[in-house]
């Protein structure tokens, strides 16, 4: 589980949109995984099993409580990247794309993360999110369209 934890935390950031909530979600998911360890099938993928668990915990248990107590979702600036490297062009682009992805509707953001960042196939992402493949496809298409238009607009304003 230790090997999966950094990715689980990162997925928790993508799910919740906030680092501090990601800490809670990742920890709760680990506890739940221990609780249900006997249900894990040896030889299957621990990461997908835990991601699915995190997704369920977020949607079914934590989100409503967090939103109620935290006053709303996704202050984008809270996920901002650590600025370890010099401000190269690629880093500026990375930061820009990250912020735009974080501003996507939640369901689109989850799909973008699983397919484009984690590299899961549509089928695998659908299984983690427990939705039909067609829904994954339409969320990705909507996300691509919105991001593409936004970035084209931004580029147009700069030129």
């Amino acid at each position, binding site marked *: 589980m230790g090997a999966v*934890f950094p990715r689980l*935390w990162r997925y928790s950031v993508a799910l919740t949109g906030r680092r501090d909530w990601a800490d809670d979600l990742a920890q709760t998911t680990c506890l739940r995984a221990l609780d249900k360890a006997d249900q894990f099938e040896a030889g299957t993928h621990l990461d997908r099993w835990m991601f699915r668990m995190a997704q369920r915990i977020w949607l079914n248990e934590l989100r409503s409580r967090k939103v109620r107590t935290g006053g709303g979702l996704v202050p984008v600036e809270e996920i901002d990247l650590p600025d370890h490297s010099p401000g190269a062009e690629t880093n500026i682009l990375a930061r820009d794309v990250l912020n735009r992805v974080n501003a996507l509707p939640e369901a689109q953001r989850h799909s973008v993360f699983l397919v484009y960042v984690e590299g899961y196939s*549509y089928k695998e992402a659908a299984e983690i999110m427990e939705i039909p493949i067609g829904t994954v496809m339409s969320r990705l298409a909507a996300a*691509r369209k919105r991001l593409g238009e936004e970035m084209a607009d931004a580029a147009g304003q700069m030129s």
Partner: protein
Amino acid sequence: MNQTRTYTDEELTAFLDGEADDALATEIGDALETDVALGERLATLDIPIAALTQAYDALLNDAPPMPPLPEAVPEPANTNRFGWGWGVGTFGTGLAAGLAVALFTGFGQPAPPPAPGWAAFVASYQSLYTPETLASVTLTQAERQAQLQTVSAAVGLDLTDVPDAEGLTLKRAQILSFNGKPLVQLAYQRADGTPVALCIIPAGPDDKPVSMGAAQGMELARWNTPGFGYILIGGQEQAPLKSEAQALQSWSVGDTI
């Protein structure tokens, strides 16, 4: 000459992601050679995936360490230092053996270490409870009996007459699982709201008197009766937990003789 049909955003997205089936991929690939508008649409949908991956990879470096749950707990020398819960190897074939060692060596020591094996699990779980967690839960007598009967049957020990010792109020009785063994959690609340849990799991044959310890910033008491291990955990004060534990231990001894 090329009559291009209109493709949906979903189809074009699947094409860009390499998820279009061969026929569709070939069709779109051919159409792109003549259909300028299609090329423009595709360009609109093309986003800088590499930059996105790079951004999230940077975030990966920011992941906090594993939660300080069982790591804080000393383990018997013959298990790895990260204990039973957190090594990748604990899942799968190594799980049963690893947990059994932790469980039984813990009970086999002359002086039990503060919180080996299942105690760490119990402590981690209990640390999530707050006074609000169970504040709104009120069991009727019938519900109480029904829950106690269920957990009694699951663990193989009659808990239906477990007392509300020392002013504790039973809020919920449920079955958890640890290494495939039933683990009973009786969630109590003190009058001041402090959550306290009595947990029971099948264990070795030896009796053990109440010993006090601490885990996850909470006070913890443990004892054994033949066949079962008990942990009472909750709060930051030893005195009330000790008297609660002694009362429940007296009950448990009477119950299993």
